[in-house]
């Protein structure tokens, strides 16, 4: 910085805040999140190792029953633990649903982001705005409106029947397809925006370079555009995958509460099932899954940054 600073300001910000001032300013926000988010997460970790109370709640006795319940079922007659996979299946299905939703969002989202980034600068803001607005609009209401459309007696089926394409409503609502559709609909903006940010910074002269070296359009896309915008693509995929994995509203409303995903399984334990340790264990497993995904990608991003010499 060329501007001479007032005496003693080496450690200070431009506004004259010392390191201690900055810590004091930062502390309240960190404290709030620590006490009311990190601490509660610690509570559910502890609860997942306790014994379940009869009417909800917990009994303070150490137990791994909650985790055992994932893999085993106690046989009513012999009292032996028998392997059963229904909870594993819920997790498996949630992961598949989230992966499918992420892939579908990428297939729609990447071209959209690319198209927007190649519009004249004056139009880009308008497009970005159009993509952003739905994200801020109430997720519950958006899901309700999706349910409204795809129901058997909803506008979509009515219109299809009126055109004579079908003579009976297609069952969309309360299927896995509806959940997937709801997830894409919910989180698509998360895919478009980071990819757009990456493509907007992309140096389009590289396209000409590729072209001069006899690469065709799709080769250029595959070998130049996608590798150079990968951080944005990865960010978009994470931002769709993670909320999809733990989603509650889409499977609850569009799946009709029958096709359970992880989020519904957890919620159920604190509502009608009243098995808090199991619900806590399910939440801890979900959180672990999310953390694993985040760590893998954070490490990859770091390696990529090191490799490219940044």
């Amino acid at each position, binding site marked *: *910085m060329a501007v001479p600073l007032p005496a003693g300001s080496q*450690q200070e*910000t*431009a*506004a*004259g*805040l010392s390191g201690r001032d*900055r*810590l004091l300013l*930062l502390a*309240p*926000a*960190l404290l*709030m*999140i620590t006490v*009311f*988010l*990190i601490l*509660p997460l610690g509570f*559910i970790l502890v609860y997942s190792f306790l014994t379940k109370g009869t009417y909800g709640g917990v009994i303070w006795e150490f137990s791994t029953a909650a985790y055992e319940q994932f893999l085993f079922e106690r046989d009513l007659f012999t009292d032996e633990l028998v392997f059963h996979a229904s909870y594993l299946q819920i997790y498996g299905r949630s992961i598949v649903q989230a992966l499918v939703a992420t892939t579908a969002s990428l297939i*729609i*989202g990447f*071209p*959209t982001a690319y*198209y927007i980034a*190649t519009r004249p600068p004056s139009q880009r803001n308008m497009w970005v705005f*159009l993509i*952003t607005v*739905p994200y*801020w*609009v*109430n997720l*519950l*209401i*958006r899901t*309700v*409106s999706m349910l*409204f*459309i795809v*129901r058997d007696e909803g*506008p979509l089926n009515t219109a299809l029947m009126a055109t004579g394409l079908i003579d009976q409503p297609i069952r969309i609502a309360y299927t896995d397809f509806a959940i997937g559709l709801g997830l894409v*609909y919910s989180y*698509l903006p998360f895919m478009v925006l980071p990819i757009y940010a990456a493509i907007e910074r992309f140096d*389009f002269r590289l*396209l*000409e370079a590729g*072209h001069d070296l006899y690469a065709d*359009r799709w080769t250029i896309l595959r070998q130049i555009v996608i590798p150079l915008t990968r951080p944005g693509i990865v960010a978009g995929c994470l931002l769709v995958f993670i*909320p999809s*994995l733990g989603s*509650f509203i889409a499977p609850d*409303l569009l799946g009709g509460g029958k096709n359970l995903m992880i989020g519904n399984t*957890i*919620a159920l334990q*604190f509502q009608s099932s009243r098995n*808090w340790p199991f619900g806590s264990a399910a*939440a801890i497993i*979900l*959180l672990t899954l*999310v953390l694993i995904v985040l760590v893998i990608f954070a490490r990859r991003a770091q390696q990529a940054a090191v490799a490219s010499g940044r």
Partner: protein
Amino acid sequence: MARARIDLKRYPAFGTLTWACIVLLYAPMLVIMIYSFNELRSITNWGGFSLAWYWKAITNPQLHAATFNSIVVALSAATLGTVLALCAALAMSRGRRLRYQDTGFAIINLPLMVPEIVTAIGSLVFFLAVGIQLGLLTIIIAHTVFCIPFAYLPIAARLQGIEGYYEEAARDLYASRWETFRFVTLPLMLPGVIAGYMLAFIVSLDDFIITNMVAGPGATTLPMAIYGMVRTGFTPEINAISTMMLLVSALFVSASYLIGRAGDRKYNAQ
């Protein structure tokens, strides 16, 4: 040359997919808006334009209480969250990197990382364990936590765009730190603060999953009321309330966006 560049940039189906994306995002909302004006209770038939369902929604006393609760919660949580985020942003985006900068940033963003359902049951278990009565207060606390990162991001982005010279100039002219903040930093960052506040407000107003867990009996918010109504069956009244909420959200987001942009323009012009 210019011609070749334009051609190279263009991919045939991308424009179509973009429009498909816009239709997917907007069609369900548009349809629900249109049907909210349908006079008939029937979903399949159009009975003519009517505002009857709006009247029914507006005069529904249960919705009054829920709306009131929602607004109280959103105002409190957004205000508290924005103040905390503002302080944190001042500490984090100015001057040299702090030793605990990365940790601080990770903690502030944590509410966005943890799946909402996990936060929801964590908060429920925590409030019950430490003996805080479930109700509006617990909703406000839980909302404040996730309002912090939503308010923080636009404020920090704004602060990073402002050079330190203005504040240095003020300090050189013997302004106190408070005066520097009040008359230089705050006015410059105000668009970011307003944008952050509005986003926090909307996010709080819209939250369902966490609210539903920590609300306890009696404290119903608007999304909870709508969820309850959908559960018992679709009525055009739901379409009417949904339309009103959609419009409120869209209005807030547009305003937040315009304020943020006007602020940028003003700053760049200086």
